[in-house]
């Protein structure tokens, strides 16, 4: 491969990885944006999304829908709804009672939810990997020795489309403003007629649905699922959300893409390589935060004396 081809291929790899990070980071960011919680359980929602969609796809595989794109799209929609509702239930059961508690307690509760989720899946799957069989092959197109499968191309488009829809929803409706306002002063929002519980529930629904969609895409793309699969991407997406400016929606996408690119080029660059690539990206993250303490798109915290 020529240098140019390597760059293009790595660019593409980074974008695809980055859009997964972005999708998961969105959920972190939204939840943080509204109740200032670093939702550790979010990564497990991603994992549950993967498994949920696998069951559905296995089921639909037997019907006329098949395991091709049609079956995948239907499974994805149902997964997003089911897992979105799971997110809402988790919020009701585990987070709502602690809304006024210290924030770190909420963080630990989220950790508890995370443990419950992944250990449940571990028990159910006996800790084994599950193959994610789809009807998609490895067909693709190549430009020189740059090779991109159709699946990859479609997934990246889907991820970007989902992010755009979310962005429009948040900027074009009162919902987005209410979300931000709730994070600043919940009681005062109530006095404006905002149904705070409903908006929080909606946030969890949307965030979880997005994570679930990412979980399914990961299954389709990587071909296998594991109860622990959320862990690493969880940390990465969390990092991405912070790089972009946590609580800021476009920031999460930007952070995700940036992190994806850092990792893929980090792997390729000789002195860094796969061994040091995470050190490389975390170092850049720390530098970003030192020079821009609220993340790339974050605004300066403004409070007067």
């Amino acid at each position, binding site marked *: 491969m020529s240098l140019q081809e390597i760059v293009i291929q*790595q660019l593409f*790899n980074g974008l695809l990885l980055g859009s997964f990070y972005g999708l998961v980071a969105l959920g972190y960011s939204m939840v943080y944006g509204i109740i200032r919680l670093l939702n550790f359980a979010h990564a497990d929602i991603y994992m549950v999304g993967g498994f949920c969609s696998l069951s559905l796809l296995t089921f639909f595989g037997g019907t006329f829908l098949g395991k091709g794109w049609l079956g995948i799209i239907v499974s994805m929609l149902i997964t997003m709804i089911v897992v979105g509702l799971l997110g809402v239930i988790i919020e009701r059961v585990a987070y709502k009672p602690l809304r006024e508690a210290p924030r770190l307690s909420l963080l630990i509760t989220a950790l508890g939810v995370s443990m419950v989720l992944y250990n449940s899946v571990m028990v159910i799957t006996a800790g084994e990997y599950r*193959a994610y069989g789809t009807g998609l092959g490895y067909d693709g197109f190549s430009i020189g020795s740059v090779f991109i499968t159709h699946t990859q191309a479609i997934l990246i488009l889907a991820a970007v489309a989902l992010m755009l829809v979310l962005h429009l929803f948040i900027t074009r409706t009162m919902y987005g403003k209410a979300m931000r306002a709730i994070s600043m002063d919940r009681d005062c929002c109530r006095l404006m007629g905002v149904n705070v519980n409903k908006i929080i529930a909606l946030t969890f629904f949307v965030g979880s649905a997005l994570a679930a969609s990412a979980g399914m895409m990961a299954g389709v793309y990587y*071909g296998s699922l594991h109860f622990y699969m959320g862990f*690493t991407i969880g940390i990465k997406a969390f990092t991405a959300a912070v790089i972009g400016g946590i609580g800021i929606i476009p920031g999460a996408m930007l952070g995700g893409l940036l992190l994806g690119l850092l990792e*893929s080029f980090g792997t390729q660059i000789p002195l860094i390589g796969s*061994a040091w690539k995470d050190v490389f990206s975390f170092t850049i993250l720390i530098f970003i935060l030192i020079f821009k303490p609220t993340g790339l798109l974050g605004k300066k915290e403004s409070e007067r004396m």
Partner: protein
Amino acid sequence: QPAAPSQGEDEEAGGAEAPQFDGEILVGIMVPVTGSEATYGQDMENAMKIAADEINAAGGILGKELKFTLGDDGCDPQMCTAAASKLVSSEVVAVLGGYCSGATIPALKIYGDAKVPFIITAANSTELIKENPGWAFMINSPGYHQADAAADCFEKLGVSKLAFVHQGDGFSENLAELTRDEWLSRGHEVVAYDVVNKGEQDFSSLVTKIRSSGAEGVYWTAYHADGAMLIMQLRQGGYTGEITVADGSSSVQLLEIAGAAGEGVYCTSPPVVDYLPAAQKFISTYNAKYNQEPGPYAGLAYDGTHLLADAIERAGSTDPDAIRDALAATDKFETLCATVTFTPENVLEESNFMILKGEGGKWVLVE
């Protein structure tokens, strides 16, 4: 779903119609039955129980009943020390097991200090034995046997430029290093030497790197699940060279997950019972009792149990020194997987590695 055998089942199997015993011999099992490696640990425990049933049915050891007590090391060094001291506190005669090298090392010290003979049935890092001179015995071929096997395999495939991928843990890194050195010493080229972090799913940038390095073969030294994903992504990313995986990936699950991409993948494998003619009876017993296939390390676990029983018989007592000396003196003891004789370092003398190839979703023995 594999039924985790309950305590009750265990007793029933042990004491069904066995003869009268004159006391019991308590042996510790140290394997992970929780955590990421729980399946293998479970397989090993199951196989040991089968061996114990056979031994007890044949009259036990020195007329005493062989009993087990489990210490779960969770494949985690911290948990492992607790498990090891729990076993030592229960005054076991010897310990069987040891799956994750990293989690076995701290235990070795504890067993050595307590003078408890320890037969390591799966972990095979060469670092292990140094920690416990005299009291630990490895019945799995050590890493350098595998490095030889892998180099032979690639040479046969006519490959010269090789890429190595490990997973950043002691075991897979150690193997990758040994094989790399072997490969270089045979006058070949290493074009990439990389690591994927545990839990990562996306290897596409690594695939591109390997492709751009011009590698003709890839040697994966870590475990099957991530191995399967790597294989799929290599093929998806347009890599067409040879792929060989190491013993951690010898599970059929690798082929199940990898699907079409798994065709033609080679494996340097420890003696897996499925391909050993002598092991057919063991397999059917295992199937009958646990309703699943024995995993890759079940055979060695079974062998280790018999080896221990034999050594205690030869020692004629449960005195630890006597057992240790008897183990060290083992001479051409026939087991399912190999003929056991130990080197002065208590490591297996002859390599027991074999080469498998993925064909039609199954491993088949090459040669």
